[in-house]
């Protein structure tokens, strides 16, 4: 009778499997590999106990593998058992050595390759006890090892086991574990769920908990849809069980899902729904969290007043219940609101206020985040030095706490700061530094963004090939992770490269490709930008009507979404069209219209650019004094904001004025002054242009040799960066020079080449002019 009661603890199925396992242990004469699938640690303990009872004479040792150990499976076995003669070994926790975030775990590789040795070294049965997901991973990752298995044994948990396992999982909050553990946990939960469902009378308590935990696990793995589905399933069960806290938590979690998917109305609705329940059951923390979340919704919707209101409301509750972390978070959120409203002083104040709390409670992550936010404030205020300082300060904290994402983000921000200061080399260096970290932690978005930024830097430096390469590289990643916005941006940027290289067809193609994506995801800004870019292509191809049409089309979108910068840019572009069509009055009008907008939004770069454009109008109208005045006016702005490219361009424009006024010495001086700046920031296009202009000066002064030298110097740069327009312009200049020096052959050759390039990039007028120049008598 006694054995019967003991056996009653195991189901029939489990007994059958157990017998098979015992048979294996008895039959095996030497090394034999077995895998026992069991999802519950408690059940495993009972099974092992039962095996020992059935096979009393067998020397069976157990070992729990240590994932933190430097050594792999084999050395751990060797260390534990030496050369003991055993009848079998049970190994636990192999699953902790998997890295489910990648498809290749080093621990598995070792198994794959050491199996010969394994078999010789351990001439007895070795049984791995694993949860189901680990068995699947093993069969996948270590096919050779798996192929050697003699038996697999499946043990199914009873309800009691499920409840036990769930309690174990609930103990440490999922947000605190590594991604790798999250995956593993989700897998275990899924199998627990399958077992629960298979039971005749599923225990609703365990079922509700499992659904909720699965929802959380999925949420933190960014599987938001799946998370939502699980929370939806948990909710009625909690209601049935009259578990009010569970109900409120499930509702709030559904709100979190909605928020993360930008379904703001629903999110707010959910939080509003959870809030009274928390209040009713007196769960102050739940209450504060729900309010804080309502603030997050408002912040996401740019309803800054309401956001601030919510945070202000949550703050005293956190303080009252003594939740310092909640307090710090609420304060930091108030800082985020201020930052979004461009109230930089207040934002900084809030962050400075949250910072010591994070420090006090030892939340290093919060501390690092607050410091980084202070860096963001400084960056927005164009106090780049201080911004960099803050990021540099946050960086070692992220490193110390092993937050690789924070680390990578801080490094990337340092790159962004460098980029804004036109220190492209350093920017690229930083991005290159962040990239492998994103890769290592499997943050595909961060990876794609870093690559995209590297492309941006290359584009700014007119290293077009590299830029294109980078965008091409980022694109499939965005596609793979389903980031449509990133995808569209990468395509758009790729179009920018083509535009810069005067490959107009390609550029238009890419913009046309990005446009519907922006439209589909409802990104109005992206949509407007893509349209404006199509306008840019048309403008560069001298299709002025279409260009104007595009800009007119983008303009109302910018206005509608309240993007003042976009609006100003579109207006300025309309000015550019007018300028190109020699409608100088209208051009000036447009620039004058854009200028106050730039000033109002504090975009100094746009302001300087608009002023410079006004200078261009004046130059075109041969009002040289006014032109020079405008350029002189723009120059200090560029210098103040540290835009070296703008500075160089303004100086070059001053050179253009001087050249037109036949003040050749000054013109040359200006160009010579701009040249090293272009070189310094690595802008090859600017460099080539400045050199060509120096050639033009020399040509005007009839210093033909120097002119030839300069053109010969500029041409390969244009070719190297693939700027077709620049190449044609240089060839045209060379043709002019040849014409001056009566070198008929060279003139014809140069002008023909220029003509055909103009033709190929669709610049019919220029092509005609080049042809006529060749025909015109000297």
């Amino acid at each position: 009778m006694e054995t019967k009661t003991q056996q009653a603890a195991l189901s029939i199925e489990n007994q059958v499997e157990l017998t098979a396992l015992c048979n294996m242990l008895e039959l095996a004469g030497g090394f034999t590999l077995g895998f026992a699938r069991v999802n519950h640690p408690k059940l495993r303990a009972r099974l092992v106990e039962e095996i020992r009872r059935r096979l009393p004479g067998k020397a069976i040792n157990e070992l729990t593998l240590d994932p933190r150990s430097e050594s792999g499976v084999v050395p751990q076995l060797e260390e534990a058992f030496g050369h003991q003669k055993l009848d079998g070994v049970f190994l636990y926790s192999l699953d902790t050595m998997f890295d489910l975030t990648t498809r290749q775990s080093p621990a598995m590789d070792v198994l794959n390759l050491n199996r010969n040795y394994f078999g010789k070294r351990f001439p007895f049965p070795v049984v791995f006890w694993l949860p189901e997901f680990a068995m699947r991973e093993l069969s996948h990752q270590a096919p050779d090892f798996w192929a050697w298995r003699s038996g697999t044994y499946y043990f199914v948990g009873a309800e009691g086991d499920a409840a036990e396992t769930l309690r174990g999982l609930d103990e440490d909050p999922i947000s605190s574990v590594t991604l790798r553990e999250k995956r593993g946990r989700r897998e275990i939960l899924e199998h627990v769920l399958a077992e629960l469902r298979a039971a005749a009378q599923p225990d609703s308590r365990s079922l509700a908990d499992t659904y909720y935990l699965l929802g959380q696990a999925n949420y933190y793995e960014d599987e938001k849809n799946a998370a939502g589905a699980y929370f939806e399933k948990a909710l009625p069960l909690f209601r049935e069980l009259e578990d009010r806290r569970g109900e409120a938590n499930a509702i709030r979690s559904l709100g979190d899902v909605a928020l993360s998917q930008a379904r703001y109305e629903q999110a707010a609705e959910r939080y509003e729904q959870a809030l009274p329940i928390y209040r009713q059951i007196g769960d102050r923390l739940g209450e504060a969290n729900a309010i804080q979340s309502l603030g997050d919704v408002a912040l996401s919707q740019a309803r800054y007043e309401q956001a601030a209101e919510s945070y202000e409301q949550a703050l005293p509750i956190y303080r009252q219940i003594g939740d310092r972390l909640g307090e710090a978070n609420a304060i930091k959120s108030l800082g985020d609101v201020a930052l979004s409203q461009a109230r930089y002083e207040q934002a900084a104040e809030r962050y400075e206020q949250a910072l010591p709390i994070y420090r006090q409670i030892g939340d290093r992550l919060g501390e690092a985040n607050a410091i980084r936010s202070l860096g963001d404030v400084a960056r927005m205020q164009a106090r780049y030095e201080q911004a960099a300082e803050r990021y540099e300060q946050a960086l070692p904290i992220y490193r110390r706490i092993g937050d690789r994402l924070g680390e990578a983000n801080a490094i990337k921000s340092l790159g962004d700061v460098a980029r804004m200061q036109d220190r492209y080399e350093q920017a690229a260096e930083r991005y290159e530094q962040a990239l492998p970290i994103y890769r290592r932690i499997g943050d595909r978005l961060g990876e794609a963004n870093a690559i995209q930024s590297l492309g941006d830097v290359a584009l700014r430096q007119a290293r077009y090939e590299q830029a294109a390469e980078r965008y091409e590289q980022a694109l499939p990643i965005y596609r793979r992770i389903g980031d449509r916005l990133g995808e569209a941006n990468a395509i758009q940027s790729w179009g920018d490269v083509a535009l810069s290289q005067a490959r107009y067809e390609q550029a238009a193609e890419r913009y046309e490709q990005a446009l519907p994506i922006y439209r589909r995801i409802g990104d109005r800004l992206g949509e407007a930008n893509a349209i404006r870019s199509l306008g840019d292509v048309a403008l560069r191809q001298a299709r002025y009507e279409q260009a104007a049409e595009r800009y007119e089309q983008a303009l109302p979108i910018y206005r509608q979404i309240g993007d003042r910068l976009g609006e100003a840019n579109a207006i300025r572009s309309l000015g550019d069209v007018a300028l190109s069509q020699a409608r100088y009055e209208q051009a000036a009008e447009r620039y004058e219209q854009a200028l106050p907008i730039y000033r109002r939004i504090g975009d100094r770069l746009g302001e300087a650019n608009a002023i410079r454009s006004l200078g261009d109008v004046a130059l075109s109208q041969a009002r040289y004094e006014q032109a020079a005045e405008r350029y002189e006016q723009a120059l200090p702005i560029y210098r103040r904001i540290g835009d070296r490219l703008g500075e160089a361009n303004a100086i070059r424009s001053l050179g253009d004025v001087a050249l037109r006024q036949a003040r050749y010495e000054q013109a040359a001086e200006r160009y010579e002054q701009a040249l090293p700046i272009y070189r310094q920031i690595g802008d090859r296009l600017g460099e080539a242009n400045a050199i060509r202009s120096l050639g033009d000066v020399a040509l005007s002064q009839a210093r033909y040799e120097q002119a030839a030298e300069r053109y010969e110097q500029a041409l390969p740069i244009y070719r190297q960066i693939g700027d077709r327009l620049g190449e044609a312009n240089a060839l045209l200049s060379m043709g002019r020079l040849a014409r001056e020096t009566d070198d008929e052959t060279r003139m014809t050759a140069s002008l023909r080449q220029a003509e055909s390039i103009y033709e190929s990039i669709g610049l019919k007028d220029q092509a005609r002019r080049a042809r006529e120049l060749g025909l015109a008598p000297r």
Partner: protein
Amino acid sequence: MDKRAALYQQFDPARPLEADSDLYVDWQRELNRDDIKQRLANSVSLAGDIAVSRLLTGHRGVGKTTELKRVKRILEGDPGAGAFSIERKYFVSLLEAEQWLDLQDVGPPDIIFHIVRQLVDDLNEAGFGFAATSFGQFFKEFRDILTSQVELKSIDIPTDFAKFGLVLKQVPVARSTLRSLLQGHLPKIYDLINDVILKKARQWLKQKKGCDDILVIVDELDHIPQKVITEQGLTNHVNIFLDGAGTLRSLNCNVLYTVPIELAYSSSRERLKAAYATEILALPVIPVTRRDGSAFEDGLQTMVRIVEGRTAEAGATIEEFFSDRELLRRLCSLSGGHVRMLFILIRSALERCDQLPLTPEVLDRTVRRQANDISLAVDANRWQALDEVHRAKQPVEEDPELWYGLLKDLFVYGYEDDLGSWYDWNPLLGEVPEANRPSRKT
């Protein structure tokens, strides 16, 4: 010993057959197939004095190692090894890669190094004195350089070249140091081997052993796990076998490499053939069904004979083993002709019975369990592809990655008949109940 235990131990999926085992069933000859051994042996011997490279691939666990050991014996002129004779006699060196190389971290120079090491080892064994050659001097120099490396100071590097290889395997630091050293010394090694060692060894072999030439067989390279190593999706397989073909073909003697099946059937197949100037020979699975799905009696009988041989070895009879011969046929059929799978099935059945013979009921349970095991790594995508393979008996063309994975993980077996290659799923998959298939994620 209990017969059940004796049987259990006979059907060990982890132990390949030795070449001279009586248990060897030459199924290819029995089935009148193109004998892979003959093709391999001919492809080497017919090339005459020109050093050739040959490539062999095949599923895991179909008996490549066993076949290679047979080929070795055939080319060594062992009259008992094959029913056909080879005119030339070879000195054959067999390098078992897993024993010497860390396949996790391996490059063409390491492979070449170990080919040389194996050859030197085997020649030494045969009585060819190395100490007197310039190779002895070279190794001494080489060792001196290695010993002088800071990171290797603490390691005792043996003066014996053969033992030297073992140290390399056990000390990861030594490996990377060796590799960078090899990079610089490879040309020197080639010259030494090609112009000095191989020449002298050939003369010596001709005179003392009557051997016409040398062949090195490199087994288990097909076990190198595939990894993607660059952004552009370049795999280590391509890197080693294709980009490294120049290095792997640098020795002036015949070499036979085993290559991973997923590479041999990948889009790189043609490039691979071109790089080694050879066909890629594949060891097929024993056919137990025909293309049309009907049973292939001869193949089944071959499988049965494999079981019979081992059963006798365990001191039992088929009648004692199976309650009905039909059960054995069923197992053979469900193995898809894959010998290791058959052994796993048999072992699993033995574990699930209390006494012999095995009954239909035990077998049903076993098959259910094994089918479930197999289906663990099959997601909805793979199921769709597998259904299609089973229906059309053709490769999945639209998704190469998926297809290579199916081949590699033994979800699909490749067969050959008079019309050429055809494919079918692992028959155990047909035993997976519809309800156990994962639902397609939306």
